[in-house]
C-alpha cells in the first residue's frame, strides 16, 4: 500500500506537529508572562485555574468572541490574508526539523520523528522562514494607517538586513559539516556540539534570530511609544492573536533550529542505549533557548533604529564573514 507511506503517514505526522505547535504557542505565552513576572518580582497570571494554567484558554476564548472590526479604508483581501501569511511559514519550517533519531514500527511502517530529511533542509528552513516577512509588510500596508505602514517598513528592512549575518552563521556550519541536510548536521555533532566549535557562529545566530522573530531588544516593528503598535495597530480579535501566534511559533522555530545546528539536537547522555531519550533532550535544549530569549526580553532595553542597522551592517556582518573565512581556512587546511 504505497499511499499509506506516501500520503497518510506524513499527513498524520504533520497534523500532530501542528496541534503540538499550536498548544505550544498557547502555553509559551503563559510561560513568558509568568517568567517575565518573576523577573519583575510580580506574580503573573494566577487567577484562571491552578497557578493560572487556564489563562491561555481564557485568552483564546476572549480573542475569539471579540467584535470583528475592519477599517473602512483597508485593502480587505490582504488585510485578512496577512495574519495567515505570518503563521503558515512559521509552521512549515517544522517539516525539516529532526526531533529525534528514534523510530518505531506500526504495521510494518517505520515512523520517524521528523517529517522529511530534505537534501537541502537548511536552505529550506531559511527560505520558508523568510516568507513570513510578507505577512507583516502586507498587514502594515493594507491597514492604511501611517503607524502600521512605518512599522511594516521597519520590519522589512530589519528582516532583510539581519538575514545576511544569519546566513554567514549557517555558512560556517555548512563548511564544517559539508551537508545541508539537518539530520546530517545533527549526526555530525555526536562527539562535540557545534556551540563549542563555532561559539561565534552561535552568538551571531542567536542575535539575528532575535531580530528575525522581532523579539526584544529588536522589537522595533511594534514600538508602542512611537508607533502605537506598529503593524498590528489596526488589528483586533483573532487576527491580532494570529500575529502573536506567528511570533511565538517563530520563536520556537528559532530555538529548535539553534538546538539542531549548535546544541547537538537529540544527542545527550545514554541516547545510544535508549534512543527515545533524544526527544527529551531536544525539548530540554529547545526550552533552554526559549528561556534565554525571554530572559533577554526581561533584561535589555530596546535599541534605537539607527543602532539596529549600524549594529547589523558594521558589526555583525563583518564578524560573520570573518568567522566564515577562519572556518573555511581551518577546514581547508586540517579538515
Amino acid at each position, binding site marked *: 500500500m504505497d499511499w499509506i507511506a*506516501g*500520503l497518510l503517514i506524513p499527513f498524520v505526522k504533520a497534523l500532530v506537529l501542528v496541534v503540538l505547535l499550536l498548544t505550544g504557542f498557547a502555553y509559551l505565552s503563559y510561560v513568558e508572562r509568568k517568567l517575565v513576572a518573576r523577573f519583575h518580582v510580580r506574580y503573573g497570571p494566577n487567577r484562571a485555574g491552578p497557578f493560572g494554567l487556564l489563562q491561555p484558554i481564557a485568552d483564546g476564548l476572549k480573542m475569539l468572541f471579540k467584535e470583528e472590526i475592519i477599517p473602512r479604508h483597508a485593502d480587505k483581501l490582504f488585510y485578512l490574508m496577512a495574519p495567515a501569511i505570518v503563521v503558515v511559514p512559521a509552521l512549515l519550517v517544522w517539516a525539516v526539523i529532526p526531533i529525534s533519531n528514534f523510530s518505531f514500527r506500526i504495521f510494518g511502517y517505520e515512523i520517524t520523528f521528523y517529517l522529511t530529511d530534505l537534501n537541502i533542509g537548511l536552505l*529550506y528552513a531559511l*527560505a520558508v522562514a523568510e516568507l513570513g516577512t510578507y505577512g507583516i509588510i502586507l498587514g502594515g*500596508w493594507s491597514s492604511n494607517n501611517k503607524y502600521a505602514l512605518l512599522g511594516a517598513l521597519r520590519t522589512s528592512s530589519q528582516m532583510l538586513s539581519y*538575514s545576511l549575518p544569519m546566513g554567514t552563521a549557517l555558512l560556517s556550519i555548512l563548511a564544517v559539516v559539508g551537508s545541508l541536510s539537518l539530520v546530517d548536521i545533527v549526526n555530525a555533532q555526536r562527539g562535540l556540539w557545534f556551540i563549542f566549535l563555532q561559539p561565534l557562529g552561535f552568538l551571531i545566530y542567536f542575535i539575528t534570530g532575535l531580530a528575525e522573530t522581532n523579539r526584544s531588544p529588536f522589537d522595533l516593528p511594534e514600538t508602542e511609544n512611537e508607533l502605537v503598535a506598529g503593524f498590528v495597530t489596526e488589528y483586533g480579535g483573532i487576527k491580532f492573536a494570529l500575529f502573536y501566534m506567528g511570533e511565538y511559533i517563530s520563536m520556537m522555530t528559532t530555538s529548535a533550529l539553534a538546538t539542531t545546528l549548535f546544541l547537538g539536537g537529540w544527542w545527550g547522555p545514554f541516547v545510544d542505549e535508549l534512543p527515545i531519550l533524544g526527544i527529551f533532550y531536544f525539548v530540554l535544549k529547545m526550552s533552554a533557548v526559549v528561556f534565554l530569549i525571554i530572559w533577554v526580553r526581561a533584561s535589555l532595553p530596546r535599541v534605537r533604529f539607527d543602532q539596529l542597522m549600524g549594529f547589523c551592517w558594521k558589526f555583525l556582518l563583518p564578524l560573520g564573514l570573518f568567522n566564515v573565512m577562519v572556518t573555511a581556512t581551518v577546514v581547508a587546511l586540517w579538515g
Partner: protein
Amino acid sequence: MIEMIQHPLFWLVAVIAVLSASGVVLSRNAIYSALSLLANFIMLAALYLMLNAQFIAIVQVVVYADAVVVLFVFVEMLLGAVGRIPVVERLTPHLIVALVVGFLIMVIVGSVVYEVPIGGARGSATQQAINQAGQVQVLGMTLFTDYLLAVELAGVLMLVGLVGALVLTHQWRRERGIRVQRANREGMPSASAGANRSSLTGNRS
C-alpha cells in the same frame, strides 16, 4: 503514487503560474503586481521541484521571493507608487516599440521551445551520482569544474556591479565635497565640521 498526482499537480501549478504572470502585467495597483510576481516565483519554484531540481527551487525562493520582491514592495511603499496606474489610451511611439520588441522576444522564445523537445540538456552527472552525493554537491562539482570560467565571469560581473554602486555613491559625495571646498576658497561662510570632513574624504577618493 507520486507519478499519479504529479500530472494534475503540474496543471494546477502551471495554471496558477500563468494567471499570476498575467496578473503582474494586468493589475492596476503596483503592490498587486509585485505580489502576483511573488506568486509566480513560488509557482516557478514548485515547477523546479517537480523536475527534481530541489536546490534551484529553494534558491529561487531565497533570492527572488524573499529578497527581490521584498525590495520591490519596500521601494513601492517608500516612494508611494501604491495608487492606481493610469491606463494608456492612445498608441504612443513608446507603446509601439514595446509591442514590437515583446512580439520578437515571444517569437524567439517560442521557436526555441517548439524546436527543442522539453527535457533539456543533460550534464555529465548521472542519476546514480546525484542520489549518491546529494544534489548540492553534484551541482557544486559541476559548476566548479566544467563551468568554472562561466562562474568566474559571473563573479567578475557582480564585482563590477558592486564597484559601480560604490562609485555612484562616491560621485555624489565628491561633488558635495568640491562644492564645500569652493565655498571655503571663495571665503564663503565656513561650512559645518561634518561637511569639512566629507570634503576630506572626497579628496582622498
